[in-house]
């Protein structure tokens, strides 16, 4: 039967008399093609000597010529050194110990250089892990090769020579001094003894210069409190490895709190190592407003507003001093529990805070003093944060009033990082003399009269006092790429000294720091501990007034918590694509900052998030107003966010000195009034849809125990392995058989006992989600950056990702119980869909996932061209040159770890990141190939590193010791969460962890026999 159905696109088509439709039907294209533009001119067409045949001839000829030319190989030129430096041997890496201190991050590191160019940051294992590199430090090597760096000094935007700049600036200084005009020297916190020495000299030579220090993210409250209590404006240091009870009030001490570096010590107390059959773990209470890394790791996390936290803090003090509680019932109960744990821990207890209140800091110091905490160290203090909020505000005023006529800025960007940025810019315009020492033509430098281009830390000399008696040295690892000079060198010129900063540094160290130790040794180690005596500072503070203030803390409306993200931190490296693309460990969002808000608040305010059908995340906007500034920010609903609070990260919204791709987010510094991280804010929904680039949308585990296994310390101590870490079983002839048994395996077993067999072990207890491994993997393996647009299409290239899961119930155990109690299909449907929603205060777990290097790899069997195959050493190989891009392997991988090169990511203007310019490409690791379009790639277990280790051993003819084998992620992990080694070496850590009771494999029931082990996460639930 004929089909008489008529299909139509618009109702107009149904009207047979519609002339317009008639007209359209007769046309091939709806809009007229612009052929007149090139065919319309009759005269030109006739005059043209090229007819169609000629055109075809040319096409044919050029095609043939091009294909012929393609057969000829290119000529490669090799240019050896004229005089080869002794220490450089092509193909061999050199390592230099150096120190990063950029005012925000602090680390003592090894820099790997190849043929004279730094290509990777490694941890220096000879020094305490607390100075290890975080994600930003790992990525800092790429910032060296930033092609938007200033290439030389400028005057009003046009290049001038250094000689001119030095001469004119010195004249200016002399003039201003003779006329008695005031100058400000605004610097970041250097914590550098030799630089401080120079600044002291310059301020004594020019008595009209006032030195003001400022941190973009301030610790002013903590500094003031410590100054009041101990008489020194510094920060105490901490050793969390001694802690038994940790109570944190809004302090993200596993993140960037007071310079970071606390995680390795903390993790030591979190490993359930059985001694005499019983494991011990510290107890961690976290009071916080936004979800942080510390909150995610905590045993008990209490989402609260800053005001509530202050009340609890006060109540804890009152409880500990047996005073009379004035707070409400819930607060007092909470305080009692905390006080009980602190008493139990005695001197191993610790209370820390990051509340923007000097009183809160004073009270926490008082509590620590009261319990005699050994975790806090008031003897060894640190001056890595010295910023003085009051002085900076005064400076802005003085610049505008004309009280300060000149300003010299070193390594700061106040126009961007000050809440009063605009006023500062106005004041800067009024100044008679303004000079900015800057690496970039940033917001401030572009407004200063003179800009002195300074080198990257990898091109600089320097020193830093990590804490009392702990010193680090910075040495250049490459000659300056551009025409730059260090701030200190310029200071020396101003002082009229004919010496370089290096010489000054050396003589200063030899005179004041090195007591007999040779300079060369200190420089080689990059780290020096002096044994000068230090005095314990006397505690002298009474906190009665502070208690009064804290316990009456109130909050009106919403409070905005400003925080720093793992990726960008304070925003210095905003032009670093590795950091922009690093997913935030908590939200898993890349290339953005956003307003985090709790689900009930979002509902109340009409703010929304929505997952699109293509698997991308969209969100609404909100207008937030603090004081007189209003920002329109995208909204992200964050489980665990305290009700009544919202969060916004610093470091984004930069406009000057960075590529257009990196100009993402909004500038939260504009709301950072009085350097207080908590602000009262009013929020209203705004028009528009924001497109997020989020790498994980399945937020909950939904009770799937074979992905992340968890147990409690109590069960771990009392039950046996089969209870909390059972191997999945399958039925064979109606007999339950473990999936690990060869009986139920469809594959043949290979004898893998000869030679090396690599395993990677990931301890879920030790992983804090810090992301250092992800960046290290980028750097080591030339993993491309794909940009926000591609991430949104789930085309991220990270070989290593850190999955973050929320519990749907209060705990993951609750989820498991819910799933196990489902009966019937109907209930399962409703229950599972409800399990997709994370709880309002969920438990959080991090799980680093890379290629699992399965011994029975599903990817290998489906590759039609055998591009992926198994090595005897346990690694799943990927031959890129063999891959034809069918992507069968990725589809067959149960772990979703294979990454496809949808495009050519290098030398492609569409991906204008570091691989698109000669400078950026200098960071590439020459031992790893840069993949091309259309091939699959994935984690190789750093086969280039294992092969190198093996070759080094062969060259000398020796055995390989445990710990020599490393992957980029395992060496980057300062917490010891990732260990790598050879399981055929029976003494290795991985072969021991393979037999551990906590060991399991991801999705073991699939029977893939991975070479990556996971260790069950054990939680300490004794928190009542």
């Amino acid at each position, binding site marked *: 039967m004929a089909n008489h159905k008529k299909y139509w696109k618009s109702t107009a088509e149904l009207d047979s008399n519609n002339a317009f439709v008639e007209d359209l039907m007769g046309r091939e294209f709806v809009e007229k093609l612009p052929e007149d533009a090139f065919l319309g001119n009759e005269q030109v067409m006739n005059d043209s000597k090229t007819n169609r045949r000629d055109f075809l001839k040319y096409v044919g000829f050029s095609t043939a010529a091009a294909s012929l030319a393609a057969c000829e190989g290119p000529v490669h030129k090799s240019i050896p050194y*004229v*005089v080869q430096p002794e220490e450089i*041997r092509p193909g061999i890496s050199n390592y230099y110990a150096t120190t990063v201190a950029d005012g925000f991050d602090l680390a003592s590191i090894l820099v790997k250089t190849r043929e004279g160019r730094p290509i990777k940051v490694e941890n220096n294992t000879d020094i305490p892990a607390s100075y290890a590199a975080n994600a930003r430090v790992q990525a800092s090597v790429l910032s060296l090769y930033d092609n938007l760096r200033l290439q030389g000094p400028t005057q009003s935007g046009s290049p001038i020579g250094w000689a001119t700049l030095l001469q004119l600036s010195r004249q200016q200084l002399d003039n201003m001094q003779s006329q008695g005009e005031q100058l400000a020297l605004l610097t970041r916190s250097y914590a550098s003894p030799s630089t401080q020495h120079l600044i002291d000299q310059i301020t004594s030579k020019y008595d009209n210069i006032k030195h003001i220090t400022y941190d973009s993210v301030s610790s002013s409250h903590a500094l003031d409190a410590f100054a009041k209590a101990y008489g020194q404006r510094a920060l105490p240091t901490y050793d969390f490895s001694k802690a038994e009870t940790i109570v944190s009030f809004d302090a993200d001490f596993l993140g960037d709190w007071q310079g970071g570096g606390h995680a390795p010590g903390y993790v030591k107390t979190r490993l359930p190592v059985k001694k005499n059959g019983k494991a011990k773990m510290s107890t961690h209470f976290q009071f916080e407003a936004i979800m942080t890394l510390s909150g995610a790791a905590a045993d008990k996390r209490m989402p609260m507003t800053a005001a509530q936290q202050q009340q609890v803090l006060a109540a804890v003090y009152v409880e500990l001093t047996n005073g009379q509680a004035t707070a409400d019932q819930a607060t007092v109960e909470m305080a009692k529990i905390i006080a009980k744990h602190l008493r139990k821990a005695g001197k191993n207890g610790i209370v820390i805070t990051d509340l923007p209140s000097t009183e809160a800091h004073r009270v926490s110091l008082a509590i620590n003093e009261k319990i005699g905490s050994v975790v806090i160290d008031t003897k060894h203090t640190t001056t890595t944060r010295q910023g003085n909020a009051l002085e900076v505000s005064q400076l802005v005023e003085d610049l505008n009033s004309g009280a300060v006529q000149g300003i010299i800025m070193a390594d700061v960007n106040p126009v961007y990082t000050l809440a009063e940025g605009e006023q500062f810019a106005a004041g800067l315009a009024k100044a008679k003399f303004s000079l900015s020492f800057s690496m970039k033509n940033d917001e401030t430098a572009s407004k200063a009269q003179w800009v002195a281009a300074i080198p990257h830390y990898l091109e600089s000399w320097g020193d830093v006092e990590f804490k009392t008696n702990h010193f680090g040295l910075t040495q250049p690892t490459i000659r300056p790429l551009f025409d730059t000079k260090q701030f200190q060198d310029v200071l020396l010129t101003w002082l009229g000294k004919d010496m370089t900063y290096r010489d000054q540094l050396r003589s200063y160290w030899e005179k004041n720091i090195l007591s007999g130790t040779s300079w060369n040794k200190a420089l080689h180690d990059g780290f020096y501990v002096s044994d000068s005596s230090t005095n314990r500072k006397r505690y002298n503070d009474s906190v009665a007034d502070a208690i009064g203030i804290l316990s009456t803390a109130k909050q009106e409306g919403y409070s905005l918590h400003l925080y720093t993200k793992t990726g960008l931190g304070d925003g210095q490296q905003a032009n670093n694509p590795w950091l922009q693309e690093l997913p935030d460990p908590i939200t898993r969002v890349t290339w953005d900052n956003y307003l985090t808000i709790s689900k009930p608040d979002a509902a109340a305010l009409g703010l929304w998030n929505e997952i699109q059908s293509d698997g991308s995340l969209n969100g609404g906007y909100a207008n937030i107003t603090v004081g007189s500034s209003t920002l329109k920010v995208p909204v992200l609903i964050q489980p665990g966010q305290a009700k009544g609070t919202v969060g916004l990260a610093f470091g984004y919204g930069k406009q000057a000195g960075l590529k257009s791709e990196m100009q993402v987010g909004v500038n939260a510094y504009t709301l950072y009034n009085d350097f207080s991280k908590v602000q009262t804010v009013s929020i209203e929904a705004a028009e528009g849809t924001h497109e997020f680039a989020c790498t994980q949308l399945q937020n909950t585990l939904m009770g799937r125990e074979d992905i992340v296994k968890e147990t409690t310390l109590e069960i771990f101590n009392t039950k046996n392995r089969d209870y909390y870490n059972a191997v999945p079983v399958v039925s064979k002839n109606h007999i339950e058989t473990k999936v690990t048994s060869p009986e139920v395996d469809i594959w043949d077993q290979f004898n893998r006992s000869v030679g090396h067999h690599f395993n990677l072990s990931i301890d879920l207890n030790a992983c804090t989600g810090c992301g250092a491994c992800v960046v290290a993997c980028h750097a080591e393996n030339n993993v491309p950056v794909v940009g926000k647009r591609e991430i949104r299409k789930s085309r991220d290239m990270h070989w290593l990702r850190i999955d973050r899961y929320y519990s749907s119930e209060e705990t993951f155990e609750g989820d498991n119980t819910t799933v196990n109690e489902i009966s019937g299909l109907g209930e399962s449907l409703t229950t599972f869909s409800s399990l997709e929603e994370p709880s309002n205060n969920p438990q959080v777990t991090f799980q680093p996932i890379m290629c699992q290097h399965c011994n029975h790899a599903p990817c290998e069997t489906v590759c039609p061209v055998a591009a992926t195959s198994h090595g005897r050493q346990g690694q799943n190989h990927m031959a890129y040159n063999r891959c034809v891009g069918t992507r069968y392997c990725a589809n067959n991988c149960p772990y979703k770890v294979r990454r496809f090169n949808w495009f050519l990511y290098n030398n492609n203007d569409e991906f204008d990141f570091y691989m698109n310019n000669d400078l950026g490409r200098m960071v590439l690791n020459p031992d790893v190939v840069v993949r091309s379009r259309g091939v699959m790639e994935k984690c190789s277990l750093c086969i280039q590193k294992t092969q190198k280790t093996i070759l080094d051993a062969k060259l000398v003819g020796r055995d390989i010791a445990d710990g020599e084998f490393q992957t980029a992620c395992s060496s980057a992990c300062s917490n010891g969460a990732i260990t790598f080694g050879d399981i055929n070496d029976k003494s290795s850590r991985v072969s021991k962890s393979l037999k551990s009771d906590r060991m399991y494999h991801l999705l073991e029931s699939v029977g893939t026999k991975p070479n990556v082990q996971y260790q069950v996460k054990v939680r300490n639930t004794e928190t009542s």
Partner: protein
Amino acid sequence: MTNNNLNMTRVFYLNVPQIRTLLTIVLAVALALPTFAQEPDIDKGKSLFNMNCAACHKLNKRAVGPALAGVSQKYEKEWLYAWIKNSMAMVKSGDPQAVAIYEEYNKSVMTAFPQLSNEDIDNILAYTDYTPAAPATPAVVATTVVSGTDDTTSTLLLGVLVLVLVVLVVMLFLVTQTLRKIAIANGIEVEASKSKRKPLWEVYINNSFLVFSTVILLLFSSAYFAYGYLMQVGIDQGYSPVQPIHYSHKIHSGDNEIECKYCHSSARVSKHSGIPSLNVCMNCHMNIAEYNGEEDLEKGYTKEFYTNEIKKLYKAVGWDEENQRYTGETQPVKWVRIHNLPDFVYFNHAQHVDVAGIDCQKCHGPVEEMEIMYQHSPLTMGWCIDCHRESNVDLENNEYYEKVHAELSKKYGVEKLTVAQMGGLECGKCHY
């Protein structure tokens, strides 16, 4: 004449041709020697000179120290003895001649040679004073010309043969033409050869089986050749580009037997063999400013040619030959790279050269015979794999291999293990 006597005693043990050569040598030496017995020995002097002096002195040219030809005429013999044995002592004692020469040569200290006896010094001086007779170059030219004709004669012969054949064909054609003309002139009708059989091509066309099989054959053979052609695309075996400096591996590695890894030192430790930096060249060429070895006149490789190439090195490295110092004006040499492995292959020289102890020649061919360096091996994956399949791993004396060796040889039941058995065929060992 003790030397000669010694040789004479040995004569009895030598066979005839040896005796002949020996006699010539003896004769030559005897002729070269002055007539009286106590005269210094030039040969001895030469070897002493080369051993002790040549590092800093040349005969006719200023080097680190002055040219030594005719030095005995310039200075007293006694003074020379003293100077050579301990020059610095003389400078310190303020000997005017000594101080003058010390000043002239940038105060470079001459090594003291207390071990040299006066007799030794006499020998050396005799050598420096000795001027050899002009070599009989015409003879060399003659021989090269003779050897050169060999090739040309064969091509000439071939050419003549071809020419003769062509002439024959033309003649035959002309003969038939003339015969036909004669026949026509004589009125004889030349019968067109009419065959009853079909022409061969028609038979062939009609035989479909034959057509089918030829097509198949043609297809297969063209596929074979096409495959062969495609497989050689990108393989640069024999690639021998013109280099900015004519560096002869034959002279360095062949004639002078310099160890490969003296210059390509990083091959021992690194993945790169490394093109030596120019300062390595200057280790020797600071003293070797001119070429004095064999020539190949046919190709234009004269002594001047080679010396000129050395000058290019000096220019690149910024060496002022006159004043024996570096000017600092360098011009790095842009060598054309010959061995290009694709980026997706990881190859490590140290693994092969140092761990495996493979001779460089195994992959790079007879480098010591290469006047111009070329790519000897195809550098294809098949070529790598073949070698990995065949080569045994040298497991002796390497503690790293001990355990693995014992276990693997048990597993495979063999005494010697090939690279392949050690896992040397796995993709990921070279591609990452």
